[in-house]
């Protein structure tokens, strides 16, 4: 039986949500979504595009995927935009179909926080800051990913909104991918709900690791394992 790591499963699952023709953009600590986008290009979405963070690289060829979003190796790409141009286009609201986002905190509605844990007056943890997360309301779809599925990360309400769940041009957050599961959002309540459980993970485990009351999709199922082809390609990319 083929085995895979949690990051590999996450990358494959993220790649499934890139449609042919999509234009995606990602920020810091983005090795996972970069690999996912490249995998999508090599499989079901050959006409999709992605812009790799601060490097400005458009469709970097990867293999390997550098851990830093500004790595010089990313400039081996279809073309390269000066970073200010990427920032310009992020504001247009009709260019980027997918924004990948993360956070120290992610709340029940898909708001993300990279600013601080605690209040402004009593900050328990100062985060690095939200960089481009305020652009999320201008994305077509927001896909959230995190390596930390625990009750400190998944909270009922973020202490600071770096990346708003509200959208003015698109659908807002549509997916959260964690090492345990994937979530989508209830169209009525706008709250995150359990969508798929990664193989071997139980609903109880997820609930215990989630700091808000998590709904359940009526279509709850197991996360589809990576295919051999996906894994082979991903290992070349990553």
């Amino acid at each position, binding site marked *: 039986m083929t085995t895979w790591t949690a990051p590999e499963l996450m990358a494959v699952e993220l790649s499934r949500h890139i449609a042919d023709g999509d234009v995606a953009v990602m920020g810091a*600590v983005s090795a996972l979504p970069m690999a996912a986008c490249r995998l999508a290009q090599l499989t079901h979405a050959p006409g999709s595009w992605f812009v790799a963070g601060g490097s*400005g690289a458009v469709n970097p060829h990867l293999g390997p995927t550098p851990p830093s979003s500004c790595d010089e190796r990313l400039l081996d790409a279809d073309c390269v935009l000066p970073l200010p141009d990427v920032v310009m286009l992020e504001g247009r609201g009709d260019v980027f179909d997918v924004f990948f986002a993360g956070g120290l905190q992610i709340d029940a509605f898909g708001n993300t926080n990279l600013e601080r844990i605690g209040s402004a007056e009593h900050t328990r943890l100062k*985060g690095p800051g*939200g960089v481009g997360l305020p652009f999320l309301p201008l994305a077509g779809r927001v896909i959230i990913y995190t390596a930390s599925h625990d009750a400190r990360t998944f909270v009922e309400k973020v202490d600071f909104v770096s990346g708003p769940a509200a959208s003015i041009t698109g659908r807002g957050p549509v997916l959260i991918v964690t090492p345990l599961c994937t979530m989508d959002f209830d169209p009525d309540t706008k709250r995150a709900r359990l969508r798929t459980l990664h193989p071997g993970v139980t609903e109880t485990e997820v609930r215990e690791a989630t700091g808000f009351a998590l709904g359940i999709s009526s279509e709850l199922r197991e996360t589809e394992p990576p295919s051999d082809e996906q894994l082979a390609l991903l290992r070349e990319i990553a």
Partner: protein
Amino acid sequence: MKSKVASAQEAVEESEFETLAIGGMHLHNNPMATIFELVRQERRVPRLVTSPSAALGADVLIGSGLVDEIATSYVGFEHLGLAPCFRRAAENGSLKVSNLCEASITHGLYAGASGMPFAPLPAGVELADVWRSNPNAYRMIVDPFTEAKTLVVKAIRPDVAIIHAAEADEQGTAWLGGAVFTDRLMAMAARRVIVQVERVVSREAMERRPAGATIPGFLVGAVVEAPGGCRPTASHGNYGYDEPAIKHYLQMARTSEGFAEWMPLVTVAAQ
């Protein structure tokens, strides 16, 4: 023609600033050699402005106790962790953090470089909490064409910008040698620019470098030749970042004592 090549010491001594901007993004092109010189000269930085993603350069200035206020959208070490000195100073209140977002820094620098007094931001950005946390930099106004509420950010005009480039000639014309980040824009917005470079090259060698990757010498006040001057961060076109050295920094700088131990070792080594 007077050469603009100067030592880091001279370049820093000749710089007066309230607002200092430093270039580089994440673990790349942090102008460390000149930053170490600021520390050696114990230059107070009343206001530090960074690229949308600052790292070691900002953390070292903050750790050295020189920074009163930082205007930034991110200080961290990407996949390697949080910025220890920034975090400590922000948490204990000794550093004023003026939150900006990536759009505000980029468009704010564009406005500064263009003589625009401020820059409107795209609708939607106001849904984040950033602007409410930094009333000095933002205002909500009315779009005179549509009457819609519009968030605007003040122009950023650094008194001095310090950036790293691969090469420059004696007249100051510089070539970035990799991703340009917001460093070109920062140079265009600043009143005085210090470019530190891996190599000083001839004027002829600079000719016909790609249009979007150079900074014209008339914007540059001083060229500091500093081979390896970004270490332990990367210098695009020249060397990658030194991950063990950065991890060592992150370990040492967990405490102010550890940082104080790390700092002289590095600054002496850099001399």
